[in-house]
């Protein structure tokens, strides 16, 4: 018996989940369990109540509303990769999801779980930063929309009240010819990235009209490189321009830990930003999307 004793609840609707969250002081939501179960097994977290939301069917959905993709919090990572809307409208997701753990963990792990766990190096939050996605939470007072830029409060803490539940995330589409690339560097396949980079670009004729660059793993939350995005705007798809964007990535705020220094993270960020831009440019030129 690994986890300490708790009382198990299996509500069927989000309303019931919120009631339980309001009622119990020390309750933890259990989604895919791929991050929470290890912490329960090791007794890093010892909640009195575990609220299993795997039976809340309304949270498991992928919906194309015409201008955005709405992804329910309980959507499994493996199911999202199978969605036709993802393949055609947000193909960068496929590239990123392939790096989220292993196929066995993706069969259980969810989109909402990753966004609430908020590991600094996690791929899904890095993507949401690139897209300026909107997080939709529900609490006793109804729904609340939180732009991703305000979602991480600090290290691994999302902007959620104790009685709130993440319901879904809304990902606004880029135009149908956008270029994209997700690249990361990890010591072994399936490990959390040391640095992950998501790039999106849109063109107006031969020049870049819009760009988004998000870097995960450098700091405690994904960072958008707004300055580098500005450098790209109005320019042609030119490696020299990509290199100047990469130089900005080299100055990104980066943490040090026992294995990786901040300057190593910065050098990786520069290399990967350039690599991602080159790939996104190739895709946009080939009209591959």
């Amino acid at each position, binding site marked *: *018996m*690994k*986890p*300490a*004793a*708790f*009382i*198990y609840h*299996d509500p069927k609707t989000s309303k019931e989940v919120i009631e339980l969250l309001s009622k119990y002081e020390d309750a933890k939501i*259990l989604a895919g*369990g*791929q991050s929470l*179960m*290890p912490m*329960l*097994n*090791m007794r890093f977290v010892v909640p009195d109540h*575990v609220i*299993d939301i*795997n039976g809340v069917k309304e949270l498991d959905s992928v919906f194309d509303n015409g201008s955005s993709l709405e992804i329910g919090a309980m959507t499994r990572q*493996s199911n999202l990769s199978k969605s036709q809307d993802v393949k055609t409208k947000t193909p960068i997701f496929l590239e990123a999801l392939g790096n989220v*753990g*292993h*196929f*066995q*963990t993706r*069969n*259980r792990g969810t989109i909402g779980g990753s966004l609430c766990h908020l590991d600094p190096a996690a791929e899904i939050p890095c993507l949401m930063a690139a897209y300026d996605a909107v997080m939709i939470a529900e609490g006793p007072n109804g729904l609340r929309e939180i732009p991703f830029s305000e979602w991480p409060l600090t290290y691994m803490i999302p902007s959620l009240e104790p009685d709130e539940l993440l319901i879904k995330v809304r990902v606004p589409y880029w135009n149908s010819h956008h270029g994209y690339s997700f690249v990361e560097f990890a010591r*072994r*396949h*399936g490990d959390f990235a040391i640095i992950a980079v998501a790039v999106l670009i849109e063109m107006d004729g031969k020049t870049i009209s819009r760009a988004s660059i998000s870097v995960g793993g450098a700091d405690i939350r994904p960072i958008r490189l707004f300055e580098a995005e500005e450098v790209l705007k109005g320019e042609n798809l030119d490696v020299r321009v990509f290199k100047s964007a990469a130089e900005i990535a080299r100055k990104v705020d980066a943490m040090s830990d026992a294995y990786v220094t901040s300057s190593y993270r910065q050098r990786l960020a520069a290399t990967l930003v350039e690599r991602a831009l080159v790939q996104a440019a190739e895709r946009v030129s080939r009209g591959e999307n």
Partner: protein
Amino acid sequence: MPDYRNINVVVNGVKHELDVETRTSLGDFLRQEIKLTGTHLGCEHGVCGACTVLLDGEAVRSCLMLAVQANGHEITTVEGLAEEDGSLHPLQEAFWKHHGLQCGFCTPGMLTSLAAYLGDNPEPNERDLREAISGNICRCTGYQSIVDAALDAAKKMRGE
């Protein structure tokens, strides 16, 4: 106060109905309650893959699921891969032939993971297979013989 639930699960085709303490992992439940010790628990925090079982046909880590969450579902463990008459699954045959195991600790997780993977991806190349078992740690073989066995099994399963 221990918290118990009554659950119904089908394990390798056999129905079980019993009371479990809700904090019991699926892995512990299979080994200690159902007495199927083929499923191995290595790290118990999701990293080694030895505990992999099939939940309604999909590979999952049994140390990261509660037994109560398997209520109403079908589980296949490594004991359920061979036919009822004892004839081995093509993967088991191939592991035997290619020495895909030494101590055997990782083997149940390798076999269940690969059985699910080959079901969805009948024509993998070596690279695909290395990615497929990237979440299964083996301290003995160096993986080469496992990859050889899986390539061979995939061929057999395609009828080649």
